[in-house]
């Protein structure tokens, strides 16, 4: 469904001496099969949206090629547009127009007859639980309703490939969970291929068959969530001992069965393979050594751990670093125009 080779997007930022060329996307290769749900994960400013905009023909690649739904994004943009649905981060409807009117006009721009667009629009309103909101203006809708309206806009022409750009950013947890269900049903009841960007780990984990991680404009990993997590050596065992003089003993015992042991005050952490099997004997061991525990936690690896392993930074740090040095925030379209 998507094949990209060496996609590059550069833009210029600053003037005079401060002028520099920024490679927002720096040689991205991507392959997405039909029917796949792919999560495109990375910190803010990693190049997610820029890549997406190139794949959806909104931005011409500086270099590289991409075929989307069988068509070249540069040579056959109109055919690409006909085949894909795009749900952008910023929305798609005017706040002061009726939701239904916006949807029907959008369908007609795809060449649908008015009657078909109305029928299909109403069907989608029902499916996305927007019944009764046909004559509501987006400015009077909740955040979740507005996002679902954006999804309706993206699906009006029945595309076989759907791009979703950070679909749940800014939504409350309930609205997020609700939208996840709808995104999941895109494939199950619709057979669509879904490509979604997110900087939420749990979102990629919950929705995607496969996760592609991008950092600083380059793909750093592409695999299923389970396989990615398996790359992180084992589960995290987090002990809190009762007194400071027991820290060294606990660290030594944990080190005997695991690795990457570190201490932080009265806390001792380390990576252990198959924690479920070895932790009971570790506890006995600690007990006989006279170590008293205040708490013990065993954590399965998260995608954040994966990101840390791959890039040496945690996702949260990557975002914070981006925010502080972000005069040339590559996700912003003004910069690229």
């Amino acid at each position, binding site marked *: 469904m998507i094949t990209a080779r060496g996609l590059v997007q550069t833009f210029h930022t600053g003037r005079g001496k401060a002028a520099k060329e920024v490679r927002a996307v720096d040689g991205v290769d991507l392959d997405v099969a039909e029917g796949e749900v792919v999560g495109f994960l990375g910190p803010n400013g990693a190049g997610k949206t820029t890549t997406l905009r190139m794949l959806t023909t909104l931005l011409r690649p500086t270099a590289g090629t991409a075929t989307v739904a069988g068509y070249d994004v540069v040579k056959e943009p109109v055919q690409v547009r006909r085949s894909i649905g795009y749900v952008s981060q910023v929305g798609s409807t005017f706040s002061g127009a009726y939701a239904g009117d916006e949807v029907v*006009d959008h369908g007609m721009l795809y060449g649908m007859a008015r009657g078909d667009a109305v029928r299909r629009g109403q069907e989608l309103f029902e499916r996305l639980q927007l019944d009764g909101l046909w004559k509501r203006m987006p400015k009077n809708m909740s955040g979740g309703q507005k996002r679902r309206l954006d999804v309706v806009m993206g699906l009006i022409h029945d595309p076989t490939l759907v791009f979703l750009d950070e679909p749940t950013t800014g939504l409350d947890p309930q609205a997020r969970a609700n939208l996840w269900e709808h995104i999941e049903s895109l494939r199950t009841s619709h057979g669509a291929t879904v490509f979604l960007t997110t900087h939420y780990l749990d979102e990629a984990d919950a929705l995607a068959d496969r996760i592609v991680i991008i950092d600083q404009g380059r793909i750093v990993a592409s695999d299923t969530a389970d396989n990615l997590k398996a790359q992180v050596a084992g589960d995290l065992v987090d002990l809190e001992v009762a007194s400071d003089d027991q820290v060294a003993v606990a660290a030594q015992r944990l080190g005997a069965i695991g690795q990457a042991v570190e201490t932080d005050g009265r806390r001792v952490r380390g990576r252990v393979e198959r924690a479920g099997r070895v932790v009971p004997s570790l506890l006995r061991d600690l007990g006989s050594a006279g170590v008293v525990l205040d708490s013990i936690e065993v954590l399965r690896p998260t995608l954040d751990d994966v990101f840390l392993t791959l890039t040496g930074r945690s996702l949260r740090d990557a975002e914070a670093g981006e925010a502080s040095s972000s005069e040339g925030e590559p996700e912003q379209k003004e910069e690229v125009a």
Partner: protein
Amino acid sequence: MAFVGESNIVFRRQIRMNLRNPAWVLIGIMQPVLYLVLFGPLLKPLVGSFDTGTDNAYTFLVPGLLVQLGMFGAFFAGFGLIGEWREGVIEAERVTPASRTALLVGRLMRDVIQLFVQALILVGLGYLMGMRGSVGGVLLGIFITLVVGGACAAASNALALTTKSEDVMAPVINIVMMPVLLLSGILLPMTIGPEWLQKISDFMPFRYIVDAVRGSFAGDFGTSTVFWGAAWAAVLAALGTWWGTATFRKENA
């Protein structure tokens, strides 16, 4: 033809939103109407000395106000586009297979229709106040106004999509419009000014357009004044639509 159909879809969407909020049409015409009512009477004792072929203050003033309406009204058309862009509407439209030019043309159709309604109101009021002018001449004058208005609306939309900020656009429009207003002879004829001022105004295309609309209201169709004004209007329209289309078609906008 797909292009016409697509332009129509965009046009109908825009008109629907305008009709839901007709206040804007009226706010747009407030300025020329105020000039007509509050400035027109001041011209009455003066207009005979202008040597513009009419001693009727309103026959002199209405054509100028008409062109002013065409320029100013249309130049503010782009502000609505920035709002739409911010809400993602432009991007959503650009990801459909519809022609990008149609996205502009549909909006221009709205701007021209709106200008036409405003022009009719202004001319109607002018007649009420005592303006004189043949129907044919007035219609030709309105037509020239619409051409200029379309050009300005296209330029305004292009500027909006280039700057994407009301804060940048408002001062730009002000800087452009002030000299245009002062050098076009909209409120007073340039011919009563000193020679140096007339020389400067010779470089102002809008001045010829004002003269042409004024001439056409007075019924002087065949004159070179009307011809040159209409020609300038056509040139501006070509430039405006070229800029507008180029901006809308640009890959990276």
